[in-house]
């Protein structure tokens, strides 16, 4: 009988730095601040933390963070690959550690100077040799150097096939910006976005415009995962991890899964959906709110179908009907998301999932018993269902 991950662990602490365009401090400093705040939020001592997980993109080593924050002896540490696709994977690593006893209290984090430092998609020229560099080279040689340039080939095919228009995408962007207006930590705080502004903004990678794209952010965010039992004795009410899974499928590439027969769905996200629904015993009808990964507006639309909230091709109508709003069927990214809060590679969307379950969101829906969170779209990814204890 395999060890179950269902309901074994909970997120008991969240911590974040200020999100800005120029932090003025090192990525290590951001990491330490986020981790430290997360431990305080849980109300435990740093010496009780014995596991650490982050992204392969992270520039700060676990032992550097441990030294700075004064963590205890570490018995589990690992990193997860694939940029924003890693976010939920961090939680899976932590849950496995907690369920097996490899560690008791695991902190996962991401901290980056994503605007003032090394920006995503700046390309790499070919001196070193690896299968990863060869992968990117097929695209860089033609000038495809940014995430939006890769994403749009899939987005445009989907939009053309199902008749998705700029107005549909604008609704995703504007709904999330309106959430951000109430979130003081968000880039979009105090900055309303009108349909005119959306439409008149520059084309980036046609048909995607500026406001279809997420922020570039300096900041850090951390989460503490522990057993559900221990979480009940900590400071906050636990966000119980009902189910979590990573997901990568046949034909999977990093951002460029262009060679599958059709490109009208996200097979890796469908796998993630099957996994978390099976593990939790829940279905789309049980999900009250979501934080669907939103590096680009089209990703939100496509995922509504992956997770069974709509039939193929119907997500555009679901969006147009206002279902992502606070009084809609599925309030989504109620903090503003990657589009309008901050881009911390998706870990900040998990933090909002925790706030929703706790009842602490700046835009708290009437019901948030179960919240779905996904990680990066178009990369090896994963999904997570959080529930109220």
């Amino acid at each position, binding site marked *: 009988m395999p060890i179950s991950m269902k309901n074994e662990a909970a997120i008991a602490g969240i911590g974040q730095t200020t999100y800005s365009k120029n932090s003025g401090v090192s990525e290590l400093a951001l990491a330490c601040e986020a981790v430290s705040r997360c431990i305080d939020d849980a109300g435990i001592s740093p010496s009780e933390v014995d596991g650490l997980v982050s992204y392969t993109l992270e520039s700060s080593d676990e032992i550097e963070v441990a030294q700075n924050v004064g963590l205890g002896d570490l018995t589990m540490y690992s990193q997860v690959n694939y940029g924003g696709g890693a976010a939920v994977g961090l939680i899976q690593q932590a849950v496995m550690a907690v369920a097996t006893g490899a560690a008791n209290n695991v902190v996962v984090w991401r901290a980056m100077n994503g605007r003032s430092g090394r920006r995503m998609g700046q*390309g*790499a*020229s*070919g*001196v*070193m*040799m690896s*299968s990863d*560099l*060869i*992968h990117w*080279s*097929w*695209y*860089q*040689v*033609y*000038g*495809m*150097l*940014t995430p939006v*340039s890769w994403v*749009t*080939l*899939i987005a*445009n*095919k989907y939009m*053309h096939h199902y008749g998705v228009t700029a107005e549909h995408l604008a609704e995703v962007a504007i709904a999330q910006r309106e959430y951000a207006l109430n979130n003081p930590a968000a880039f979009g705080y105090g900055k309303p976005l009108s349909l005119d502004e959306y439409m008149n903004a*520059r*084309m*980036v*990678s*046609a*048909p*995607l415009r500026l406001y279809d794209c997420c922020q570039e952010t300096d900041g850090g965010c951390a989460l503490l995962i522990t057993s559900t039992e221990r979480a009940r004795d900590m400071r906050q009410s636990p966000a119980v991890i009902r189910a979590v899974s990573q997901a990568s499928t046949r034909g999977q590439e990093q951002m*460029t899964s*262009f*060679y599958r027969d059709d*490109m009208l769905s996200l097979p890796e996200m469908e796998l993630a959906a099957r996994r978390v629904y099976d593990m939790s015993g829940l279905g789309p009808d049980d999900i009250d709110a979501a934080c669907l990964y939103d590096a680009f507006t089209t990703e939100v639309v496509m995922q509504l179908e992956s997770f069974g909230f709509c039939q193929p091709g119907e997500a555009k109508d679901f969006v147009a009907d206002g279902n992502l709003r606070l009084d809609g069927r599925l309030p989504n990214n109620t903090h503003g998301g990657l589009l309008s809060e901050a881009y911390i590679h998706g870990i900040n969307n998990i933090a909002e999932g925790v706030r929703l379950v706790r009842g602490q969101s700046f835009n708290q829906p009437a019901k948030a018993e179960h919240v779905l969170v996904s990680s990066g779209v178009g990369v090896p990814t994963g999904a997570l269902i959080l529930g109220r204890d």
Partner: protein
Amino acid sequence: MEQSSRIKPPMGPDNGWWWQEVANDVLPIQRCKNCQVLRHPPRPMCDQCRSMEWDFVRAGGGGAVFSYTVLEHPQFPGYSYPIIIVLVDLEEGTRITAELVDCDPGEVEFGMAVTVRIQEDSDGFKLPVFYPVIAQEGE
């Protein structure tokens, strides 16, 4: 002076041969020697039969636009904008990512017939690009 050349691919055992063929004005498609299945982008192993023996066929160059985007921003040195990027379904099978040239960005369409040309940059680097097949008058 502005950097005038595109980012070149690293040339390893799994991809260098492909660029070498392009430098000889050929658009190659890797083929499994064991099961004859074509594959692109090139890889060391056939995912159908796990053979590591392969050769290649010369693509005729014809194909159809499966999807596209027009890159307008941000603009990097070494490239001229706007850039039309296309996924082309080749007539032989397999799909390739490349630039579409000789086409107004407003004219590109899904399913559009295109054909390949090996383009040479001013620094001598060669790469495949596609251009629209215009139906001859009277056809």
